[in-house]
């Protein structure tokens, strides 16, 4: 437990030192929010931004980090200590949750204080949706890291999956504004479930199904990653 705590803290520090992570998980959502200044229904954007922040971290930052650790034998070195390398992977999830929470609090805070958005109606449901979304995108991120042969490829795969996902799922832009065909594609994306669940928790009309789907994807993704993952 001590090792997991220390590893998680080290990973949080490393994320906080990465300019790319800071920009995409903190500054970028704020920029999007500011671009919507004056438009109606700014409150409806925030749940999507929270999903977007988590997706950027889990789907695009995490695979690159983990694949780099494999490539540079960080995982192998850890395998010679009493700590199981899987602890390092758990610390990745912990760090993503913390960074995601920081990014979410900042953009939501800006929305509430700067734009008068009402506070979430059901914080508990929102928190559950947040944690499930984080788990889901991290599980998918591990699958990407497992499939990519090299760190650079993992980074590329992460971007190629994350970007279409945040735009088609309603995370970065509302799905209502999308053309019919693209909106239909969004219906099949995991992140769409997260946006729906977070939105439900926020507006006070929670639905159980998206939470269940996210839990299912998390379990399936974790199982796939466990089978496919190479330690070296």
């Amino acid at each position: 437990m001590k090792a997991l705590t220390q590893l998680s803290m080290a990973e949080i520090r490393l994320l906080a030192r990465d300019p790319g992570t800071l920009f995409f998980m903190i500054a970028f959502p704020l920029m999007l929010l500011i671009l919507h200044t004056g438009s109606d229904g700014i409150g409806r954007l925030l749940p999507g931004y929270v999903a977007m922040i988590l997706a950027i971290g889990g789907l695009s930052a995490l695979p690159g980090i983990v694949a780099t650790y494999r490539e540079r034998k960080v995982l192998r070195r850890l395998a010679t200590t009493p700590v199981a390398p899987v602890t390092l992977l758990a610390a990745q999830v912990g760090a993503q949750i913390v960074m995601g929470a920081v990014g979410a609090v900042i953009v939501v805070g800006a929305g509430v204080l700067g734009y008068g958005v009402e506070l979430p109606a059901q914080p508990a449901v929102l928190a559950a949706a947040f944690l499930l979304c984080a788990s889901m995108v991290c599980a998918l991120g591990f699958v990407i890291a497992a499939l990519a042969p090299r760190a650079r490829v993992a980074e590329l795969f992460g971007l190629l999956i994350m970007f279409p996902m945040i735009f088609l799922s309603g995370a970065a832009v509302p799905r209502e504004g999308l053309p019919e065909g693209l909106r239909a594609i969004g219906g099949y994306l995991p992140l769409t479930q997260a946006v729906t669940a977070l939105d439900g928790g926020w507006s006070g009309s929670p639905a159980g199904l998206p939470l269940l789907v996210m839990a299912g994807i998390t379990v399936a993704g974790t199982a796939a990653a466990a089978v496919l993952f190479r330690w070296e």
Partner: protein
Amino acid sequence: MPRARLGREPRSMTAIEVRDLCKRYGGTRAVDGVSFTVAAGETFGVIGHNGAGKTTTVECLVGLRRPDSGTVRVLGEDPARRRRVLAQRIGVQLQESELPGRLKVAEALKLYASFYESPDDWRAVLERWGLAPIRNKSFGDLSGGQKQRLQLALALVGAPEVVVLDELTTGLDPIARRETWRLIGDLKASGTTVVLVSHYMDEAEALCDRMAVFGAGRIAALGSPRELVERTGTGSLEEAYFALAEVAR
């Protein structure tokens, strides 16, 4: 055969015992019937050219690989089965392993100390290994010698009884190498058992009590540096090594 309980009385005991170790990769016999023992407190050299089976052998010692056949005992335990228990008592420095580029020196030591049940005080280790002046430097900004010194400190922060060092000084400049030798000398003096993998004869001669010369997955010769020189009738360990490695090929 009864297994010795080690660690209670580390002196005059066997720290490492390897018998008939074999490991293949596909059709290649990387290690083909290797046997040796290392006494507690001894500095033992695993010497040989690239591909002679050195790294595979030490990977079996630290539990990173499972032997195809043969027995390996480190401090009385089987590393393949009891890796995590043994890891409390073994310090390892691996070839080419890195740390996250933005992790700082002091953070790395503190982190690795947290992995062990009864580690040394990481601040004292920082001082002892001359890392205090660069404690806030990121791993990615360190020179080759500084990285190596940090890796060595990380291998020792858990206060291990056995230390395995794989190609410790490869790529270091002569001054950094000598400095590293001095640190290994301190380690020897403290009674720690050291397994030193190297392809430098001067290093083996300066540091090792005994050494095994590996060739083609087997041990071509085993003895103290002086014995190997005498046995081959050559004038130096370097010459003795070439004579032995030639036979092994």
